[in-house]
């Protein structure tokens, strides 16, 4: 994969000041291969159907990703075929995997949740100008039977394959 486009994009973002550090994968991989495979973080990526200067106006990190501050690395580049902008985020201090990851998920401390939610929100805001809110107040009642589903919908944007 060519790094030319990526270079331009990185430049745009870099111009906006360093809320988060951007890493260029030296091997030209996209998303760039992680630096320390031992406690690697995966890149979480969304494609936003908007040009890069709208996703990151003035080169800044789009909200609400900016709020994650130093905890994450952020990368932007034009998507191929005129599909907009690829926005990638990775946890700077690695993400727990295996048993630890599962435990973190259950105890609600999995930092990837914040990353996923922020990515989905940044995409929605850039594409539609708002973050679609679930119906409120809900008409459904919480029961023992639906508590697993209740849990899943409470974290509807924080989990998944992203």
């Amino acid at each position, binding site marked *: 994969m060519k790094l030319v486009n990526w270079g331009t994009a990185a430049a745009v973002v870099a111009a906006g000041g360093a809320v988060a550090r951007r890493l260029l994968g030296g091997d030209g991989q996209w998303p760039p291969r992680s630096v320390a495979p031992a406690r690697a973080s995966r890149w979480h990526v969304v494609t936003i*159907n908007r040009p890069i200067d709208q996703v990151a106006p003035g080169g800044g990190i789009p909200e609400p990703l900016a709020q994650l501050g130093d905890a994450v690395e952020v990368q932007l580049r034009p998507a191929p075929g005129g599909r907009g902008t690829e926005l990638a985020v990775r946890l700077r201090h690695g993400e727990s995997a295996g048993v630890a990851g599962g435990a973190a998920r259950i105890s609600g401390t999995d930092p990837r949740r914040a990353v996923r939610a922020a990515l989905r929100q940044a995409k929605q805001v850039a594409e539609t100008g708002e973050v679609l809110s679930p119906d409120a107040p809900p008409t459904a009642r919480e029961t023992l039977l639906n508590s697993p589903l209740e849990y899943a919908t409470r974290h509807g*944007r924080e989990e998944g394959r992203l």
Partner: protein
Amino acid sequence: MKALCWEGVNEVAVEQVPDPQLLNAQDAIVRVRRSVTCGSDLHLLGGYIPFMKQGDVLGHEFLGEVVEVGSEVRKHKVGDRVVVCSFVSCGRCWFCEQGLFSCCDNGNTNPAITETLWGFAPGGCYGYSHALGGLAGSHAEYIRVPFADQGAFAVPDGVSDERALFASDAAPTGWMGADMAGIRPDDVVAVWGCGGVGQMAARAAMLLGAGRVIVIDRFDYRLQMAERVLGVETLNYERTDVGAELLERSGGRGPDVCIEAVGMEAHSPGPQFIYDQIKQQLRIESDRSIAVRDAIYNCRKGGSVFILGVFGGLVDKFPLGAVMNKGLTIRSAQQHGQRYIPMLLERMARDELITEHLATHVMPLSEAPRGYDLFKNKKEDCVRAVFTP
């Protein structure tokens, strides 16, 4: 307000629930004038889509009057008579721009469930479980319509509520099947299922130039309706050898296009029905795909199969060998309504597309549980039950 809620497998009840509110600037609130049962609801009722909570409001095919608009709504104002697409789509993501509206990236507030289940999350649908966003349904006095400029369409003056109602779901679904299956002039088209969706697919096939359209079901009252109102040919699979008939009627070639409009609770007179039903009840297979198998088997070499029926998970005995060796094209989708609704409303205004015959039972919302009983169990020659909240 009053609404029809899901209360458990095969249990629905009219209840008092909180009124919907404007929550996003692109929302509108619509007072529902008509809301109709759909075959898709039966899959929820039967517990085949296990993402419902007690108290969820059902219904996704509706028409009404705008009573409130958010500050960013441009196309609609209070008092407009609108029909609303059953799928919630933003109109601005890549999928919406491609016309794949039901695949919208931004219409579902719970993407995690379907992303995990299916790999990626489709858009949201009203009253269609938390897997598809958990938005309250339309069997209610009022409903919140997100992205109102994208999903709500003004109904032309000459088109009645009774007719325009089906521009919400059944008509665009059927049209999509015929359109995306790639029907060409003089094609022979076979449609499995003679409910609202199958009938609309059959009518669309005719309007798109098919030479012969043959609808297959086992309920004579539905088949007779299709013959009378739509002018199509029919086959009752309980009394005829469908395969042999289709061969005869297509010069031995087989139908060029086969549209499946039955879904995951398909019925069959043969032993495969019991086989599939037992496996489904044991949760070894989640969906019965009997009509899909028939469509694939009967389709001509190099032909096209479109699956309109809703499926949720895994099917058994999928005839991949027939697909591969006959070189079939299989497509499927939840309906991309926003792509077709304005055109369908125009055709309705010109009397090219008649839909009101589908509403065999019209009743107040308070009688909705009876309406579902009639519709689910095909009693009193019911095709669709329509509620007037």
